[in-house]
């Protein structure tokens, strides 16, 4: 096709000759012709005549055109192709792996000093999803937000990857040599995170053997454990209370947010509390919450006493005095408060079926009071299971204070920091950063090059728990082995056990050997069998702490008087904890439980306080712009945006820890072309996720045990238009207009227990009369248009199951665990603060939070906070389906509303027409900019959505189809429990029920017959498959009549 240059010498010469012949012609017509011929000859004499460089070919023009044509055609063809991606099969097939079938391994996640038993889903050696370990006594299959999100931490692109010395890269060999050179007389101090690992405890003695002057200090950025200290003081020994709310009839929380994921025993607390709230019980527990700002627990309470955080101690003392746990005391007036009187009366009546507990943000004395009250009520052994934790370590404020002063005094030669970040989170009163400079050698072991790593001599990269061997105890003491799911992603990462061993012995032993060596003393009998069994089950049965009993003594310390003036309470963040989860994009974009704010931390206060400070929140054009306040305590300052929220006590500001991080990362900065929006939309684009988010408040504290700061000054300062992104527009619910709308629409339906028992509560009555739908006629649509009658579905066996869901609002606490589980299971992308502010977040299940007052009137600070998870309702008569012009959203024969991503062209009509607004649109290509490591976290069973398509909850269709396949293989129908949606699986309260309506014995069929069932917006006749079960409150009649 393409003509090649003439290579034939003989032919080439004839061509030349003929040319010469032409030029030698003597015939000419004009002088110019003759002259031109001469000038041509002149040119021919030149060495490089024009065209001499060209290939000697007869048809260069044609060749040119041919080549052009061919290359354009090829370029066109190449343009039609998708980019090549190589998929390589296993050259040698690993044993046990079946491609496409995930493996599950039991392991455990360290969290605040305890282990959480988890079951990890692994696809071809790549962990993608964390579930609770169903057999583990604490987890029982449920999880909180942190377990779900921890898988993303594994793939965090900003993880530390190399050993660093003085900010420069170095090697483990160099570190090993440096440590080996340390003399035995080195005064070593280990500042270790809270841990329950027997192996690490073993390392402690190994270190002591190597360096005689070793001291070990346990540290936590959240401060010391006041509950443990309080109970230890009350009972005279190291005991830990495990609350058995299921046994309780009265629960009183003194600022205890025991239903939030931040709680060490969150899963157990939530399950126990849910059990006590079941309407199927003969009695239902009653929860009193005494708190300064709404918490998850306060939202679940039947009665809430809004007091300033520093007043909680006085309330607790008044209650303690009322039940006779401490001698009567006068003064602060809470004894005569009607709520306190009612609490006392109820506790006295409940006796051993009552339980009180205090929050970690309360000082030790409140916990001592609670211990005394519980002891006095006889609750120890019934509602409070006291376990012996002597011999375990806990963060200690006093030890830390001594260490810091020794560091300053030069009494520490080497400081080894294991998994802690005190430069960032140590209280400002200690001046840890200053003390660090006085230590000769500082070694930091951590997963990130964080603030402490930057200030240390050595930084050693640490493995994630899914990459390393380890061990420890669950909150109830159950022993587990942490087994890795994957080899370290970055080969230089080592586990803290391996590093401690290297320092202590100079040996490069593997974590596996070290843990096994330790466990040879733990497991009895046939070690190999017991070891294998432990790895398989994920825990050692019956290895929990021993229950003990005892009597609590009255508090030794005086109950502090409530402060006057402005005060600050500092809480752990419900999403970032102490900042250790701050580089997790999923968690940054998880709305706070109460404020619904993402990608920020704020100073929360009520209207009265805000007015006094002269700060305001302005909602303009759907975006919040707020004033900043400067808070000063003891000379330390924080400039932070102010947020106005109902239900906060007057003169109180609540701050959360965990924001304002500064991480170092070697990730290349994104530099897109000017017309590309990637720079604005890529959340991973501007370096580490955590950087630039919120304000650091940890340093405001004097000591780690001071969570309530009195004598604070606050003043409006800084910006007046700081943008705050929330996932709920109505935020503070300011206008009476909107309050009335919420009251009239009743998305969350509530009835008091008495009315419900008397069958006077009508949950089904929708705002529009005449739309009541008895259960018997409910799946009418499906019967009418039975799939067997439809051409498309006739041959599909799937119609044999009709999937449906109920969400029990009586049990749901709004803890966000379902949201994170869904995010992990369904590859939901993170969009960043700016895009959330534009209303483009992608969560498939959202937790709506409303404040409710009677008929929309009354003081909004006394409003009731209610929550409602909203996934796709899978309407049988789905409004989204009929309006799609390309049939991209259709109904499946098994009754789910499906989204066909590769058919969707993105008209967004379906989202407009969805009354629940659960459809989420991909305004940009969110996956294009995902760092490679984050792509590993995606679930291969769920399509990753492209730009311009709609997405929404699918009832975890991939799980349904997996169960379909399995049952087909086994030639049996799908059984109850074969399919669990991700949200359902994570829910500790078991508020979500999912199953087959065609099975009359299934849990879902029973739940659907509940008299609390109602469908949201039933009056639209969209026939949702998802139903809600109305919430029942259990108010104290005595208080009701008084109010």
């Amino acid at each position, binding site marked *: 096709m393409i003509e090649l240059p003439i290579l034939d010498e003989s032919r080439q010469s004839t061509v030349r000759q003929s040319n010469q012949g032409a030029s030698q012609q003597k015939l000419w017509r004009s002088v110019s012709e003759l002259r031109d011929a001469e000038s041509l000859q002149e040119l021919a004499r030149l060495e490089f005549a024009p065209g001499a460089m060209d290939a000697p070919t007869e048809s260069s023009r044609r060749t040119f055109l041919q080549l052009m044509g061919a290359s354009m055609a090829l370029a066109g063809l190449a343009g039609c192709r998708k980019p090549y991606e190589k998929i390589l099969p296993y050259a040698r097939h690993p044993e046990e792996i079946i491609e496409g079938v995930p493996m599950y391994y039991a392991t455990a996640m360290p969290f605040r000093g305890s282990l959480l038993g988890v079951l990890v889903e692994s696809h071809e050696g790549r962990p993608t999803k964390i579930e609770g370990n169903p057999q583990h006594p604490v987890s029982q299959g449920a999880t909180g937000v942190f377990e779900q999100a921890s898988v993303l931490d594994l793939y965090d692109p900003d993880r530390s990857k190399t050993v660093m010395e003085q900010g420069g890269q170095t090697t483990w060999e160099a570190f090993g040599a440096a440590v080996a050179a340390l003399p035995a007389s080195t005064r070593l101090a280990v500042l270790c995170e809270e841990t329950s690992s027997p192996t690490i405890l073993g390392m402690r003695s190994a270190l002591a053997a190597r360096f005689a002057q070793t001291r070990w200090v346990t540290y936590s950025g959240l401060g010391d454990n006041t509950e443990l200290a309080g109970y230890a003081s009350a009972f005279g020994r190291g005991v830990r209370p495990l609350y058995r709310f299921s046994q309780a009839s009265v629960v009183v929380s003194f600022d205890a947010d025991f239903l939030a994921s931040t709680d060490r025993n969150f899963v157990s607390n939530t399950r126990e509390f849910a059990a006590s709230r079941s309407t199927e019980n003969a009695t239902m527990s009653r929860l009193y919450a005494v708190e300064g700002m709404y918490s998850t627990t306060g939202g679940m309470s039947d009665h809430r006493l809004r007091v300033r955080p520093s007043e909680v101690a006085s309330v607790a003392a008044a209650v303690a005095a009322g039940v006779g746990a401490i001698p009567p005391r006068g003064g602060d007036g809470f004894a005569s408060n009607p709520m306190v009187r009612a609490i006392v009366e109820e506790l006295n009546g409940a006796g051993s079926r009552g339980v009180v507990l205090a929050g970690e943000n309360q000082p030790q004395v409140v916990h001592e009071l609670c211990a005394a009250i519980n002891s006095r009520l006889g609750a120890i052994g019934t509602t409070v299971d006291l376990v012996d934790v002597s011999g375990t370590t806990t963060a200690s404020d006093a030890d830390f204070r001594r260490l810091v002063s020794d560091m300053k005094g030069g009494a520490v030669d080497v400081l080894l920091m294991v998994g802690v970040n005190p430069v960032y989170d140590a209280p400002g009163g200690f001046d840890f950063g200053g003390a660090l400079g006085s230590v000769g050698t500082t070694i930091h072991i951590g997963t990130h090059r964080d603030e402490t790593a930057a200030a240390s001599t050595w930084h050693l990269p640490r493995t994630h728990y899914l990459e390393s061997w380890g061990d420890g105890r669950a909150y109830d003491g159950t022993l587990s082995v942490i087994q890795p799911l994957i080899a370290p992603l970055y080969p230089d990462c080592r586990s803290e056990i391996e590093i401690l061993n290297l320092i202590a012995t100079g040996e490069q032993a593997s974590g596996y050997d070290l843990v096994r060596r330790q466990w040879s003393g733990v497991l009895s009998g046939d070690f190999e069998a017991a070891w294998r069994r432990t790895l398989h089950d994920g825990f050692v049965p019956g290895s929990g702490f021993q229950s003990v009993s005892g009597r609590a003594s009255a508090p030794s310390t005086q109950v502090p008087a409530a402060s006057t003036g402005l005060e600050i309470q500092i809480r752990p963040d419900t999403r970032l904890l102490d900042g250790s989860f701050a580089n997790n994009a999923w968690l940054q974009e998880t709305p706070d439980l109460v404020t619904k704010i993402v990608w920020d931390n704020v100073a929360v206060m009520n209207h009265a306080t805000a007015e006094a400070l002269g700060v305001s929140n302005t909602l303009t054009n759907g975006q919040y712009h707020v004033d900043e306040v400067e808070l000063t305590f003891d000379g330390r300052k924080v400039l932070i945006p102010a947020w106005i929220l109902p239900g906060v006590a007057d003169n109180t500001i609540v701050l959360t820890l965990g924001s304002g991080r500064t991480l170092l990362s070697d990730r290349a900065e994104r530099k897109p072309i000017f017309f590309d929006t990637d720079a604005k939309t890529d959340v991973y684009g501007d370096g580490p996720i955590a950087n630039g988010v919120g304000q650091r408040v940890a340093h405001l504290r004097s000591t780690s045990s001071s969570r309530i700061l009195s004598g604070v000054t606050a003043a409006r300062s800084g910006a007046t238009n700081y943008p705050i992104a929330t996932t709920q527009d*109505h935020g503070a619910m300011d206008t009476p207009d909107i309050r009335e709308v919420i009251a009239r629409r009743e998305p969350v339906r509530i009835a008091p227990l008495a009315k419900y028992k008397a069958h006077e509560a009508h949950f089904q009555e929708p705002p529009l009369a005449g739309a009541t739908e008895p259960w018997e006629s409910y799946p009418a649509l499906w019967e009418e248009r039975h799939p067997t009658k439809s051409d498309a579905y006739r041959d599909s066996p799937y119609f044999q199951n009709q999937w449906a869901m109920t969400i029990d609002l009586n049990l749901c606490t709004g803890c966000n665990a379902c949201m994170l589980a869904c995010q992990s299971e369904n590859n939901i992308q993170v969009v960043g603060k700016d895009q959330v502010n534009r209303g483009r977040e992608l969560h498939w299940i959202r937790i709506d939070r409303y404040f409710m007052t009677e008929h929309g009137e009354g003081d909004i600070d006394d409003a009731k906070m209610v929550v409602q998870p909203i996934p796709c309702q899978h309407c049988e008569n789905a409004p989204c389906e009929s309006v799609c012009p390309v049939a991209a959203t259709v109904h499946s024969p098994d009754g789910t509303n499906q989204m066909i991503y590769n058919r969707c062209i993105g008209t967004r009509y379906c989202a407009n027409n969805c009354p629940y607004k659960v459809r989420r649109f*991909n305004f940009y290509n969110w996956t294009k900019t995902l760092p490679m490591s984050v792509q590993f976290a995606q679930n291969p069973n769920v399509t990753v959505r492209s730009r311009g398509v709609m997405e929404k909850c699918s009832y975890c269709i991939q799980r349904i189809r997996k169960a379909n396949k399995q049952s087909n293989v086994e030639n049996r129908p799908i059984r109850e429990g074969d399919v669990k949606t991700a949200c359902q699986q994570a829910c500790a309260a078991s508020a979500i029920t999912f199953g087959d309506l065609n099975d009359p014995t299934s849990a879902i069929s029973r739940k659907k017959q509940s008299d609390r069932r109602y469908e949201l917006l039933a009056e639209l006749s969209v026939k949702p498959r998802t139903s809600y079960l109305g919430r029942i409150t259990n108010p104290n009649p005595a208080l009701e009549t008084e109010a």
Partner: protein
Amino acid sequence: MSSKRTDILQAATVAEQSDDPLLVHGGLSFHDITDLVSYHTEKKTPVAWLGAFALANIGLLTLVACIAYLFWNGVGVWGLNNPVGWGYAIVNFVFWVGIGHAGTLISAILFLFRQKWRTGINRSAEAMTIFAVICALVFPGIHVGRVWAAYWMLPIPNQMQMWPQFKSPLLWDVFAVSVYFTVSLVFWYIGLIPDLASLRDRAKTSLRQKVLGFFSMGWTGANRHWRHYEKAYLLLAALATPLVLSVHSVVSFDFAVSVVPGWHTTIFPPYFVAGAIFSGFAMVVTLLVIARRIYGIEDIITVDHLEKMNMIILLTGTMVGFAYITEFFIAWYSGVQYEQYAFKNRAFGPYAWAYWTMMSCNLIFPQFFWVKKLRRSVPFMFVMSIFVNIGMWFERFVITVTSLHRDYLPSSWDYYTPTMIDVLTLIGSFGLFFTLFLLFLRFLPMVAMAEVKGVMPEADPHFYGHGDGQAHAHPPTLSPTVD
């Protein structure tokens, strides 16, 4: 002076003496009209036109740049969010489709109703229709998330054996608007043929002769040609008439068929049609007030013509206003709290400014046209027509955005703010419109010469006869003749 000229002057005198004014003023003859209109397509390109064209082209390039930016990055460059899935793009689409309605109404419905005054304006109004529909058609194509798959909305046989989903009003839109565009274009072109032939016959260059010769399809003005032509024109007018009503009814179904409070309203089809005619006439007034002045055709497009259009603006504006009030009444009367809130929120919610802009521009301002003096005042009607254009754009904005931004569950409420790209795209669509309209003014006869001549007194077969004097007694007038 020829005798013909005298006859015209006589006719003019007669008309001035009767109650009904003449349609063409200034005593123009057939030849004068041909000259007057054709001249503008034959003269050297005026500098002013070039300036205007350059300005319009800047707008067009803005549109192209905005669309390129959109295609590269995604729909996120617009201000849309989760509750508000439709914004400027759909507002602009409905706005432009609405604008188009005046042309078809003038050329088809008024033709069938023998409204002879339409002849002066129908050509430019129809051109405006076609250009407005072209502007409108830009938006459904670009507003989808995956533009490269937008053609899936068309019923094209394919290997997936997938048809579009015929229950979706968006698909009805595809059919309604494409049929409307096709019929309008054909109708316009058929109407152009005699005039193109006139231009061809006047052409001085061979290129002009060939191009015009091709497009005038061998028109010779023969009796048979006229017979076929008029039959075809009548048939197309009959075909286009239901489309005037159907297109905007179907467009309104995009909203009316949904469950969104504020959209789910049965009054939408007639109300949208009235609104479309309202906005279309306003646009015709805006354009012609300028064009007749610049091109010196004030004797052909007279103040009488403009007054008639203003009367229609007054009528349809009041109809639209009545619909606004009816919606409120029905919301209250239905007892449905969602409807009630949707309308309350429209008038007093965060978008109240848009609502009251719409109310004042569409209902209140046109009421000035009750006053004959204002109705005939060219500067006043120009300002008023701009107001109506603004008001009708806001009507679509109010319907689309205020209904979506607060629907059923208060937790999902949000606010829609357009981005710069949204605004520039809207401006750019005007650039496209004016580019096309300027090309039309430059290269095609802006007045239907043949039709105007047909309604002049001389066109009456009895005009030159002086036999029975009927023609003198009843020259063609603005109002239909009694017989």
